[in-house]
């Protein structure tokens, strides 16, 4: 209606628009939105091999549904859904859900735009530009964004600014969120962002989204500072990935055909290269919710937010579920559909959702989890913090914690799914099989090289390893990737039946060490403690090079601390490497290579290596051993025999052997006191296995002679042995004579 009116008035004279007697008339052409139904990342692999990310259910509803619903409620008149990977599925969904072809008054028209060769957001926008469908300012959003914010203020701001300054081409929505000091990521699992904003105009002046701690400093260009005497540096903002763009943005993408990533290329390009003086502004969201599901952790976080009703009105009991009866909200954020078969002895804990036609057996316990439609859950099943999609069968006695389980998965009796796992569609897990933490299982093999039809990781949004080419790492791991369907490391052979039907994917580019950052599982305690330590270690190593002052005296003491730290970090890394080797897999030669690599990286001596390796071996023995001294002695012996070749690699001279002895002593005194009573017994053993020679032991004893009483404890303990060595030496001498 309003459009018609404005058209008839428009004929009278364009200038009349300023005289607006009715607000609607002053409004420019209909508000449009571009929705990218493809994230162009691989974060949700292996699930996204079979279903596009935007159709993955988030608390029973596909993500794109949230996005479209929000766009409609925010007053968008026309939305273009750009689909690439699995485009037919997306289109099918749009048809089925009644979005496409809906063109009544007051509702949003949805058009699908399809392309098969786009590999990035940049390509997608170029396709949109070629279609020539965007006529005015538009909202750019990706199909995995959940929000309930009001766009009105942001839009108004954008329009006003554009009137004054035609170069203001984009308004970015940001939200306050303080990243953890320990993990440097937000609660959504994104890396922290550093941005500089002019407090007056809200212009974005600097944007950095990599948690690359190798750069200790944020460097702000001198020109920025001379032009903006005041600027705010934020680390406590989160990018909502909702942008209000002018049509110029599309042509900018077309002009700069190498722009792929929205933030990394486009925003950086505008800010750094200063193309044509275009500017980007920000709008801080103060009320309302907005978050993008970028990885498994944000999937978890956002799901919880939905259950806790932060996204109202997009909450389970308000948004009607098409294929089932509505679910009702009970106390403590429990939503249970009306036709759920729930055993009386089953317990549903707080913040859980159970879909319709699902049956839950006796003595089950469901905590903080979402269970889909038509699932069959047996007896004595324990489910905690997990997302179980539709038609999943979980037999008796299973245990699932902090994992994502897709449609049609079958867990046989007694299966255990450890935290952080992802079981893709129709995977079967055998009886009493344990799926180890952070594993990803799919019926489809892990792709070993590029397949152009799928989502491609062009510019991986946030992982720390952006510099490496996207697929090389996967290819290298491909050698061991395809695990035959009957295999699992954790002793499945006893069951007789197959372990897991499906391929266990090796973790792709992020590597096992980084897995904790973005998985559903909470960050392990040890990791946090480790980070905590790292943070307090770093304390005080402030750099002062930017100041005009000479180095202070106290800085020298800092550097000593740093040195200590340096070695302990090295030791920790060696230990980790070693443990990986123990866990199996790593070849001994490779292990030596790796340790040498570490040594070079930390620029340390051979002797330090010897100490570190010895430390790791002893530590491993300690871990394996039970409490009694006898077993400890035994395991130590075994470990030493097993790894003596490795150690000998580093004990080429007496100095290095000495280092081992000193290290051993230090361990007994400080870190692993368990060894202290066994010192005298292990020492001969070291001699027997030729890890240390008698020269080293004698020199060590000599050196310690003048030391403090407290230092001599161990020399005294092993006095007999040393005595024996001395005599033996004399005998040798005599023999030679």
């Amino acid at each position: 209606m309003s459009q018609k009116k404005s058209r008839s008035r428009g004929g009278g004279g364009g200038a009349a628009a300023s005289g607006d007697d009715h607000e609607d008339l002053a409004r420019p052409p209909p508000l449009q939105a571009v929705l990218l139904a493809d994230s162009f990342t691989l974060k949700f692999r292996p699930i996204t091999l079979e279903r596009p990310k935007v159709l993955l259910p988030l608390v029973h509803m596909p993500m794109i549904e949230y996005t479209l619903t929000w766009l409609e409620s925010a007053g968008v008149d026309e939305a273009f859904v750009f689909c690439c990977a699995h485009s037919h599925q997306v289109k099918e969904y749009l048809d089925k859900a009644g979005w496409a072809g809906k063109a009544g008054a007051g509702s949003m028209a949805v058009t699908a735009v399809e392309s098969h060769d786009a590999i990035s957001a940049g390509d997608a926008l170029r396709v949109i530009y070629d279609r020539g469908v965007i006529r005015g300012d538009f909202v750019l959003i990706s199909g995995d964004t959940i929000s309930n914010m009001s766009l009105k203020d942001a839009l108004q701001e954008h329009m006003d600014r554009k009137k004054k300054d035609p170069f203001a081409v984009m308004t970015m929505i940001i939200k306050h969120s303080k990243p953890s000091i320990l993990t440097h990521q937000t609660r959504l699992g994104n890396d922290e962002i550093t941005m500089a904003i002019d407090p007056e105009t809200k212009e974005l002046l600097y944007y950095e989204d990599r948690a690359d701690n190798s750069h200790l400093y944020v460097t702000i260009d001198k020109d920025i500072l001379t032009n903006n005497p005041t600027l705010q540096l934020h680390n406590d903002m989160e990018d909502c990935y909702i942008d209000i763009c002018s049509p110029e943005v599309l042509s900018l993408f077309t002009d700069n055909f190498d722009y792929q990533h929205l933030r990394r290329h486009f925003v950086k390009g505008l800010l750094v290269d200063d193309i044509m003086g275009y500017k980007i502004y920000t709008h801080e969201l103060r009320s309302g919710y907005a978050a993008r599901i970028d990885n498994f952790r944000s999937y978890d976080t956002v799901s919880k937010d939905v259950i806790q009703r932060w996204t109202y009105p997009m909450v389970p009991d308000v948004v009607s579920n098409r294929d089932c009866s509505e679910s009702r909200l009970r106390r403590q954020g429990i939503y249970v559909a009306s036709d759920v078969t729930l055993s009386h002895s089953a317990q549903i804990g707080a913040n859980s959702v159970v879909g319709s036609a699902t049956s839950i057996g006796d003595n089950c316990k469901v905590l903080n989890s979402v269970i889909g439609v038509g699932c069959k859950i047996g007896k004595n099943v324990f489910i905690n913090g997990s997302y179980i999609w539709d038609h999943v069968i979980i037999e008796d006695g299973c245990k699932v914690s902090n994992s994502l389980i897709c449609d049609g998965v079958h867990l046989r009796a007694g299966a255990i799914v450890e935290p952080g796992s992802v079981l893709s569609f129709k995977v079967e897990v055998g009886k009493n099989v344990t799926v180890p933490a952070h594993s990803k299982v799919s019926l489809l093999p892990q792709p070993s090289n590029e397949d152009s039809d799928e989502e491609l990781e062009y510019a991986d949004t946030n992982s720390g390893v952006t510099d490496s080419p996207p697929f090389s790492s996967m290819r290298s791991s491909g050698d061991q990737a395809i695990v035959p369907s009957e295999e699992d490391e954790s002793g499945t052979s006893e069951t007789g039946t197959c372990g897991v039907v499906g391929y266990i994917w090796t973790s792709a580019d992020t590597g096992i060490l980084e897995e904790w950052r973005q998985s559903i599982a909470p960050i392990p305690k040890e990791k946090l403690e480790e980070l905590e330590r790292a943070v307090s270690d770093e304390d005080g190593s402030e750099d002062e090079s930017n100041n005009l002052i000479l180095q202070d005296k106290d800085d020298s003491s800092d550097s000593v601390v740093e040195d200590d730290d340096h070695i302990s970090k090295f030791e920790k890394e060696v230990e980790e490497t070693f443990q990986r080797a123990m866990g199996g897999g790593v070849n001994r030669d490779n292990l030596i290579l790796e340790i040498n690599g570490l040594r070079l990286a930390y620029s340390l001596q051979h002797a330090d290596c010897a100490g570190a390796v010895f430390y790791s071996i002893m530590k491993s023995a300690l871990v394996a051993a039970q409490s009694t001294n006898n077993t400890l002695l035994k395991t130590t012996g075994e470990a030493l025999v097993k790894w003596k070749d490795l150690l000998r690699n580093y004990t080429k001279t007496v100095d290095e052997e000495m280092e081992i002895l000193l290290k051993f002593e230090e361990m007994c005194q400080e870190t692993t006191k368990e060894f202290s009573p066994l010192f005298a017994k292990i020492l001969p053993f070291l001699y027997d296995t030729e890890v240390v020679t008698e020269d080293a032991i004698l020199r060590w004893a000599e050196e310690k002679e003048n030391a403090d009483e407290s230092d001599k404890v161990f020399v005294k303990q092993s006095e007999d042995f040393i005595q024996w060595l001395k005599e033996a030496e004399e005998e040798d001498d005599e023999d030679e004579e």
Partner: protein
Amino acid sequence: MDFQVVVLAGGTSEKLSPLVSKDVPKALLPVANRPLLSYALDLLEASDLKDLIVVVEGQEAAQLVGAWVSSAYLDRLRVEVVAVSEDLGSAGALRAISKRLTANDILVISGDLVTDVLPGAVAATHRRNGAAVTALLCSVPVSGPSDSASSSGKDKAKKPNRLNIVVLDKTKHFLLHIVSGTDVEKDVRVHKRKIQAVGQMEIRSDLMDAHLYAFKRTILQDILEQKEAYRSIRLEVLPHLVRSQLRSDPSGNGTTVEETGNNAVLSSGNLQCLAQHRVIAPSAFNQDVLSRSRGGHRCCAYIATKSKYCHRLNSIQSYCDINRDVIGEASHLSGYSFSAQNNIIHPSSVLGSKTTIGPHCILAEGSQLGDKCSVKRSVIGRHCRIGSSVKIVNSVVMNHVVIEDGCHIQGSVVCNNVQLQERAVLKDCQIGAGYIVTTGSEHKAESLARK
């Protein structure tokens, strides 16, 4: 208030020659016919800060300042004038009188500060925040408040070469980083850990250090003792304090407090919450990081609003600017009441016929002007004798100056007892005390002084 004030009054600064000399140390340099130091002292008196130590470089200068202070501020302030040797720097001067400091907090003010920011406000902020140091920051005079007519072109040319960079926290109370006088050519680098700790910080390059600080005495004395090489408060002591505020104290008990705090968190089983970042409140910084930052070692800033006047008299240019401002825009600083014509003409002065005194002028007692003179935006001191047809524009004429007929003075400073013979023309000059400018001579942008 338990505050002790140290006024660093300087000595006979080289920079200001020929205006200052043995007879007129910097502290007594007349600004709108009042000694410079009186601006700072009046301000302190207005804030009820009455325990002062005035530190003067050089014995002779100290005597002169002492004589003036004891006559002018008798019964008003308890002032102790202390002489220190020259070239110690501001930190050195403080170190020299460190033994005399007894109060809990010390306010250090530079004697050449002309401002209307009350030191009491800075002191109160200091107390309220329990800070180790509070510094007064004021806006950098980007192009000079009132010299739009005279030297705007000049200012533009000299503006971008040095930047003071001040980094503040979100509340604008705490100083996180301070770099004075970096090269404009250098990019600014901020340590990431600092941003991570505070979440949000504000980088300002339009502020400058006004040389007014409130220190906690113990901390100040410790630093002066430990860092014997430090000479400047602004360049060394303050940056050191700011730098060290986030650093763990190697010997102190701060670290243990921190550790127990962490242990409490770990043991109370909140780790899961921590893992999901749910417990980190937005205001965590203020309560946690700063309050436990090692025994109240906090660096605060008091930022003067833009409307406040705040300038230091440390160059000839600034001397001219401040004189002009004090009788012009910032006339409330001068302490005089201006007439309806916006000027002050002492009743004892004598004006010839057709002589005009424009607005923003001061004519002090006992001065005489001949006929057809014109004075604009200038200060004329006591007992000057000025002939006929003399033009004085944008200038400062001190006491007992003789100006004969037909002289033109523009943008210049003429010190005590100078004699300008007939038809002398001065433009942008500084004439030292007792100098005689000969008949008909013309000078431009020169500095003249008696040998």
